[in-house]
């Protein structure tokens, strides 16, 4: 039944969320909950690994928009990595690369976090 799954792990003290499957209006609340719990426990350095993300709808994109401000205000960031071309296209259309750091590989994102704790781009 569940077409969407989130796994949380840590990579060099950075929180990595592995998204799997179909992220749409039905499954978006799950991701929201995960973000909320990270923020509630003061974990603001987040990488979302999209290797196994097969689809993302506009409601799914909205989740990232909802939390980025809170995260950056706390000197953290949400970075995205390992997107398939198709998923990247969806993020790209909406202009996500203008707001978020999207790296081909998780390791790149980790490196960027280590280089600077500050968000590289002023979103707001």
């Amino acid at each position, binding site marked *: 039944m569940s077409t969407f799954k989130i796994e949380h792990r840590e990579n060099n003290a950075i929180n990595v969320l592995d998204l799997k499957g179909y992220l749409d*209006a039905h499954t978006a609340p799950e991701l929201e909950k995960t973000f909320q719990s990270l923020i509630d426990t003061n974990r603001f350095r987040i990488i979302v690994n999209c290797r196994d993300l097969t689809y993302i*709808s*506009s*409601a799914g*994109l*909205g*989740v990232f*928009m*909802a939390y980025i*401000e809170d995260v950056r205000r706390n000197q953290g960031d949400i970075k995205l990595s390992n997107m398939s071309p*198709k998923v990247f296209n969806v993020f790209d*259309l*909406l*202009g996500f690369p*203008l*707001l978020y750091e999207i790296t081909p590989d998780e390791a790149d994102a980790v490196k960027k976090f280590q280089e600077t704790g500050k968000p590289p781009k*002023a*979103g*707001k």
Partner: protein
Amino acid sequence: MTPRKSGLKKLLLLSLSAVLFLAKFVVDVIVSKLDIEVGFLSILQVLLVAGAFITLYLYIERVWRAGDQNVVKKMGFALILTLVVGVAGLILYTISTTGFEIKNEAALPEGFESIVFANLYAVVFGTTALFVLLTIRDIIMSKRRKETKRNFRIFLVVFLASIAVTLPYRPFESNIIVTLAFTLVIFAILLNSFRLSWIVYLTKREKLIAMTFSFILFGMYVPIYVASVGETSLIAQSLTYYSRQLETFIAGTTLFAATYFGMTFVSTLFHLPTAEAFDRKNIEVLSLHNLGKLITRVFDFHELTDLVTRMTLEVCEAASAWLEVREGEEATSIARARTGGNAGAATVRTVALQNINIQDIEAITGHDGGAIRRVVRESRKAVVIDQVAADDRTKHVKTVAGKINSMAIVPLVSHDEVIGILYATKTMEFGFDGEDADVLSAFADQVTIALENSRLIEKSLERERLMREMLLAQEMQRKLLPQELPSIEEVQIEALSTPAFEVGGDYYDFTMLDDEHLGVIVGDVSGKGVSAALFMAEMKGIFLSLSRLHRSPSEFLAEAHSALLGTMDRRTFISLIYAIVNVRTGVMKVARAGHCPMIFLSGNGTRFVKPTGLGVGMGSREFFSRTITEDEISLSYGDVAVFYTDGVTEARPENGEEFGYAKLEGIVAESGSGSALDIRDQIVLAVDTHMGHKAPDDDLTIVVLKWLKRQSHPSVNLHHH
């Protein structure tokens, strides 16, 4: 048979019977004048009596078709008839001065008067006996079982046989066979006199009446029987003189009546103590049955709950009753989601009450965190509290003391969940017995079904109302989209938009900004349904008010972003693509705010036009406007621009692939030489084919623009809507 014919036949039977009775009287008179006995006349007398009574019986059977009458009424009829006839017999007896002389085992009339009296006695008593026998038959046959009819037939056969065997003998001649035959009749009477099961079904009042009636009937038939047998009684003498067979018939019937009504009296006497319980059971069954019927009739929740409490009073003769239900789970879960509160905060509400006020109810249930509720919620069974003041669970109810001394608390359990609780109280202690609890439980089951039913219906009505609202919204939203296509010589425009649900978040519009600028906008609000539709409507308003102020699409998008920023929540955004075509020069400016790229077809083939830009609602004002760029295209004759929403490219059948950009681009390339309408229809057809039988799950919009201007002066003519 027609009623008239049957009426005639009845009259004929009655007249024939009367004639035969009369003939018998005449023969009696003739016989008394003769000195010797004439065998032929004796046979004639027997035949006349038999004929008269048989025709009378046939007449009565035809007239007396009252099988549905109730037993007590039948007894009443027998009683009145017997009383009247008894009194008449007594009067006749007192005024008659002459009797009979018993000689040679026969009765000889002492005078003409004796013959008249004997005939009168015979007709009146014989007719009465016939009526009484038929009455007893009907009483026995009510609530009959298989053997009832057989037993009564046995009696009839034995009885008729005992009458028949007297034929060869003289009126007062005793004979062993006759005696034996009558003994058998007595057995047959006893056999039938135990058929009294109908008594059980009478109400207490009816039982009392039946007991009185049967007592009087028994009291009358014993002396009547005594009077109708033996040689010394004048009546017996008269009847025997008239016809020994008739006398046997009357004696047998009288004995039957005395025995049967005697048994009835004894039986009703024994049934009287249980009569009340039986009555109550009857009312209970009736109440349950009534409620069952109500289930199908009362849909209004308040009407139903009021009825339920009223019937609770009836079912167990309670002093007061009330019903509380747990409020809808959906309502709570919504509240929970909103407040982020914890689960299980369902509230309990008293929805109907009888003979008690809400303060008293709160005093009983509200105290001590609803200890009573917990008891039934855990046990899921009816709980009876025999002594309210002494019971641990209800000690606090002393405040309402005097009024409530015993209680029954019954949970309404549906799908393993307690959806409500029914309360009943009585003023006396130990007011509810085990049976009450059982009946209330059965009753509660019915109530549960009825309540669920009523809620379902309410829900479906609510759904219907919402459906109507949505259809109205759909109609209104349709009107927000352009009603007519602009008719501009230089440009062909075709558009199509279909929401996946009743309303959607896709938006498109076109308008002449001035004499030479045509604006074409396509947008998609994130999410679907009502919230998306509301933003879509807002977008329409923004386009109407701001589009004419800007000749640059990127400027307009920045303004739209500013205007919308305050009204949108952070996770919502609108993707837009906006093109402004100068119809005079053929220059098209395109800006994009996170929307699907435009497909442009020209002599050089197709390409995606994808200037950068964030979705509207994303990022701060300054940041947003910095991201928006503008592409400029010079249109040539036959160039095509296709705008669309992701409903096209992301159309995906069950377990299939998305429609995709490549396919869309291919179709535009293939059909590009056709009209704007052709191109639009080719795209729609391809998407439909791709989806197969699956309904689309996203709103879908296509706008096709085809440039049809060579080097000449433009002329503009837009149909306003």
